[in-house]
């Protein structure tokens, strides 16, 4: 069954990657990243064995970091929106403050 | 799974008479009669209302997002109803015995927000959307003090399993643990009350500060249920009816049902965590073994009946308190609500967490 988990994880990761690459909206990109992180987590949990439960620890930390990443990411998106009045990534092509 | 079988009819009955009780209690508080026409003393008024609601046309607004609009109430109800499956009803009867019971419960409750946002957005209405956003902000904010106050209990009980927590608070604690119960939980008092049981073994007595923690829990739970004085998401004077504005008939009754289910859920959880779960409040006093008499025999139907009786009656007291609060306090402003949650309840709950940890050290 581990095999199945891994394949699902690979699939979700690929889909997440596709979302990140294709989408124009910055929030969509964030969603894709979350999906990729979850795919990774699925791997960790599936691999978690024995008393030490290392995989689960990793999964927990990944979740925590993902929460932080989302918070900061969305804050930046809001900031960008405030500034450019859009979150379409192809329209945000200047870094001049 | 079995509890679900119990809870679904129970919930429907509860909502019917809960609404009736709410009307009557508000009437008494406001010094009037309330419903009096249908049935004796207006007893069947709610049933009549319910019948009317079910017969009504299921209106979906033209501009609404049809799919989400139809799903949203069901999502809300399912989420809340699912969490009932984790609750214990009597010593031998628990829906799903998971080690992470309370944690799971909290996780599932937090899903409620998704449904509310879904409903608010799908309605395609300013009031609905505003109500949904307010509701989401409020629920997320008050989840913090709620979780912290529950954490205070968990520090004392040292388990997440609701059934274990229930066992610890009565005369049958020996079934799950060898640790004796001392008065106020303190071994230094050297008064063994394992066999005495009753109110003395409830968590609020085992650690008296938990009463104050329960106050925090109660306030936060009011906010979680979107009930007055924290009913900002559906503040009728400002937002018509919040995220429920566009709902009518059957779907609206589901939303209302979920709301009452939520009330019941937090009250049950409060009773389980603080007020002895399904345990009797009467202690064994020497030869007058009140606790034993009012608890039945472990494993026999009497234990089922007594357990359900005590749990449900205590829960009703809690629900009465909620209704009382609703008809007594004025609605708070949104900024007051936020500052109460973040600036007062959260730090106070953190301080109590520290106290409870120290108390737990004294209990060893």
């Amino acid at each position: 069954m581990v095999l199945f988990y891994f394949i699902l994880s690979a699939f979700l990761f690929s889909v997440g990657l596709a979302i990140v690459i294709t989408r124009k909206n910055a929030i969509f990109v964030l969603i894709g990243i979350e999906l990729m992180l979850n795919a990774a987590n699925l791997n960790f949990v599936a691999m978690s064995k024995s008393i030490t439960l290392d995989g689960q620890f990793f999964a927990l930390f990944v979740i925590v970091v993902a929460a932080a990443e989302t918070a900061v990411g969305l804050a930046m998106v809001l900031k960008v929106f405030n500034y450019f009045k859009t979150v379409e990534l192809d329209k945000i092509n200047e870094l001049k403050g | 799974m079995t509890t679900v079988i119990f809870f679904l009819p129970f919930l429907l009955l509860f909502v019917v008479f809960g609404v009736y009780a709410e009307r009557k209690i508000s009437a008494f508080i406001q010094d009037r009669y309330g419903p009096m026409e249908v049935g004796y003393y207006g007893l069947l008024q709610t049933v009549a209302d319910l019948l009317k609601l079910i017969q009504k046309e299921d209106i979906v607004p033209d501009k609404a997002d049809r799919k989400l609009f139809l799903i949203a109430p069901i999502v809300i109800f399912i989420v809340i109803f699912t969490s009932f499956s984790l609750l214990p009803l009597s010593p031998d009867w628990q829906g799903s015995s998971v080690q992470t019971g309370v944690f799971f419960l909290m996780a599932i409750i937090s899903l409620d927000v998704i449904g509310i946002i879904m409903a608010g957005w799908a309605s395609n209405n300013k009031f609905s959307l505003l109500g949904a956003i307010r509701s989401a902000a409020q629920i997320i904010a008050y989840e913090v003090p709620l979780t912290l106050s529950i954490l205070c209990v968990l520090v004392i009980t040292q388990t997440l399993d609701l059934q274990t927590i229930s066992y610890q608070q009565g005369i049958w604690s020996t079934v799950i643990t060898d640790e004796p119960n001392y008065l106020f939980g303190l071994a230094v008092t050297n008064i063994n009350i394992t066999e005495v049981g009753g109110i003395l073994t409830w968590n609020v007595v085992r650690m008296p500060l938990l009463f104050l923690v329960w106050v925090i829990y109660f306030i936060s739970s009011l906010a979680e249920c979107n009930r007055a004085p924290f009913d900002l998401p559906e503040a009728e004077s400002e937002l018509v009816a919040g995220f429920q504005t566009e709902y009518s008939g059957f779907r609206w009754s589901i939303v209302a049902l979920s709301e009452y289910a939520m009330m019941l859920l937090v009250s049950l959880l409060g009773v389980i965590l603080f007020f002895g779960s399904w345990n009797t409040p009467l202690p064994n006093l020497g030869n007058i073994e009140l606790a034993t008499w009012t608890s039945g025999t472990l494993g026999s139907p009497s234990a089922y009946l007594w357990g359900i009786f005590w749990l449900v009656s205590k829960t009703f007291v809690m629900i009465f308190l909620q209704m009382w609060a609703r008809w007594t306090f004025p609605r708070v402003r949104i900024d007051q609500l936020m500052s109460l949650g973040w600036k007062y309840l959260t730090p106070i709950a953190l301080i109590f967490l520290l106290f409870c940890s120290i108390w737990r050290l004294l209990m060893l």
Partner: protein
Amino acid sequence: MELTVTSEESWLSIIMLGLPLVSAIFALLISGRLKVIVGWLTSALMLASTAIAVVILIRVWTSAAIYNHLGWFDFAGLAFDIGFYIDPPAALLLVIVCLVSFLVHLFSIEYMKEDDGFIRYFTFLGLFTFSMIGIVIADNLLIIFMFWELVGFCSYLLIGHWYKKESAVKASKKAFLVNRIGDVGFMIGLAICWSQFQTFDIAQLKTEFSALAPMSIPSVLLTVLGISLFTGAIGKSAQFPLQVWLPDAMEGPTPVSALIHAATMVAAGVYFVFRLYFMMSPDALTIIAIMGSITAFMGAVAAMTQHDIKKVLAFSTISQLGYMIMALGVGAKNGALFLLYTHAFFKAGLFLAAGAIIHSLHKAIHDDKYDVQDMRTMGGLRKTMPVTFMAYLICSLSLIGIPLFSGFLSKEIILIEVLQAALSRGGIYIGISILAFLSVTLTAYYVSRQLLLIFFDTYRGKNETDIHENSILIKTVLIILSVLSIGVVWSLNPFSMESSWVMLKLGIPESSLPHSWTMIMSLSLIIIGLLYSYSRYRPASKHVKNYHNSSPSQNSLAALSFNNWYLDSIYNEVIINPFLKIVEVISKVERIVIDRLVDLSGIFTVVFSNVVGWIDRAIVDGIVNGSVYVVGKAGVITKSISGSKAQSYIILAVIGILIIIFLVL
């Protein structure tokens, strides 16, 4: 600063010095609603101070002087001391300062009752008393200078007490500025003193002077030193030519005039010269004597025709101060000091009695436009205010120099010495003595004129029936002061100053002349003055009848007197107007020449900046912009190669990863 105050007397002196300051602070801290408490509390503190001063006086009188000083700081190897020195004359002056201050405080409780600035007033009175005591006991020229400035400052504040009145503000400013002129002289003196002796300590200076080898310091320098220090006294004691501020200072409340501008502060100059007598060279003393006699005469003349009750007293004060200075100049320093003591009481008594009259007239006539100080509208007050009349009479007789009163004793000594100096030295001293004796007659004239105008004849003002004697408080104060002006208090034999206890301690001047000569001479002069004034101002005379609508400039002499020798006008013409002209010219020069220059440079700068700005914009910016443009274009060109989208980078990265995975597999 090492604090080693040892003896009991030192502690007493410090307490005495401190009490008025405490009183001032108290008055400052207590809120306005407790006005009356402030008055009584500060008076009580003054009384305590007076009591301590009396104790000190008795100790000093019977045993040695108190001398105590401590190191303050070292400056460039020179130790600077701070301390105090109380010898018998200083101790007696202390008693007088404290006592008069106490009486003035008492008087003011009643006099200032209705005033809004009550608290402020008592604060400044306390501060003034503190500084005055400081001047008297300080043993160091610099410390004296500090207190000197402090009393000047208090005087400025108190003259301007009614700061909403324009004339009061002007008068206070005038007093302050005129005093500055004197202070400049004082500072020059201090500078000379430091450069020559490297010390300000009076005791040390005294030893230096006594050990001074002749010719080690040019005598001209010593004369300059003495005169510069005396200049300070000229300013403070209102001597010619700086006496113009004192009559204007009468704008202050009358008790202030009594305390500051009659009894104490103006006498500080006399006391200062007395204290530094050893530093005065003979030439300086001659100048001092000349100045004093001129002042005495001018003051007396100016007092003859005044209408304002306080102005008469002010000019009389100038005249008396002139007497004292003149006495110092001719060598009768003890006599000068004795006159200072007696003058403090009778002049304070006169001022306070005048204040009492003003107060009761003011109470009777509630009219702000009515001048209650004008003697033309007074008259016949003898009947309505008998106690005030008696006090006024006693103090006036003392001022004239009638035997049995204190003024007689002190003036006697001075006249003897002046006469002796004139006889022995001749020259200028003869002129001095003529002026001195003329002043005696004039004094008798203007004092008796004032008495006749105020208290005799009939009342010429309005609301006569409402005029009443003042409260017991004021009466008590007046009685105390008039008692202290009676000769017996100062000498057991009131006809002879030789038996005066003060003079016995200070030292009686040796004289070859019999006393009876000067006595007869001065008495006959006084009688001439009295008779002349009686003939003009006797009750019901024609002159008095028309007096209330008389104008001062009946003839040129009277006008000269009334306008105080036209000194103010002269200063206006000679100093102020030319100065204003100069200032005008300077301002014109500034406007026309300097402003033009500044404008020109500004215009030039603007033009230059425009040119530079153009260069900057066109050339420098052009280069930068051009390069930026080139780089930007290049960037755009290269950007299109990279795909111009953030996700493109991800694609490239993933492709790289894919290749790696592929290779690993």
